[in-house]
């Protein structure tokens, strides 16, 4: 952890989703918090683990089926969203748009928040379920049980994504 400040205000974010759009929410919030001196703990659980899994983090996709909110670029009706390649196309488009705003791709963004002093944890139970080990996660990530996370988040502001 880097230097504490801001009256030790602490933000804990639990990330449970691993789609491209949902990955950016905790990363942007964590980065903003660190930029203003707020301590950050990031806990990744269930599909959220994809965001810090080395083999997956670079290839996150946007869901085009069952996602009613594709409208910034184009609306994809659920039936058409199921066509092969649709999700890849939407994901490609989202990566382009995010890049234009100067937000880094997910792997670089994860490294950025780690370098800024945020701590990153993988949920042990979810990892057991998905047959993941510590080696599958980014190097700085630690493996933590839910009980340990409760201790860690004492007094912090908690957010579930």
């Amino acid at each position: 952890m880097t230097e504490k400040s801001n009256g030790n205000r602490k933000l804990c974010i639990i990330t449970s989703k691993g789609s491209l759009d949902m990955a950016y929410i905790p990363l942007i919030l964590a980065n903003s918090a660190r930029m203003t001196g707020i301590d950050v703990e990031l806990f990744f659980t269930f599909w959220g683990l994809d965001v810090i899994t080395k083999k997956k983090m670079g290839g996150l996709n946007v869901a085009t089926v069952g996602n009613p909110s594709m409208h910034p670029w184009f609306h994809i009706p659920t039936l058409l969203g199921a066509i092969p390649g649709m999700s890849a196309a939407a994901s490609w488009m989202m990566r382009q748009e995010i890049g234009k705003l100067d937000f880094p791709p997910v792997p670089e963004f994860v490294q950025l928040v780690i370098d800024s002093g945020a701590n990153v944890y993988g949920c042990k139970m979810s990892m057991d379920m998905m047959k993941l080990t510590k080696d599958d996660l980014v190097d700085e990530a630690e493996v933590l049980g839910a009980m340990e996370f409760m201790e860690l988040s004492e007094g912090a502001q908690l957010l579930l994504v």
Partner: protein
Amino acid sequence: MTSPILENVEFDGDGFMIDPNAWTAEIGEAIAAREELPLTDRHWVVINFARQEFEANDEAPTLRRITKTTDVDTKELYKLFPGGPAKKAAMVAGLGKPTGCI
């Protein structure tokens, strides 16, 4: 400890200068002293870059732009400005509170 240099400088409630154009390097030093942040050459790389960008674009650079353009990387930037580089670097450089999220 507030330096006499700052007596004629206007600040908002959070300690950011109200008029960025009134900034001088001496004022920057005095703000840093007020924030108990001893400045090194590496701080000045960041501060000078922020000033340059502000003068060119009328806007403080994002941290990402600082780390991409100067040789100060993210880890060093956070070490140089404990308490949040976005806030502290802008404050010392006499710029307003940053609003960007990257």
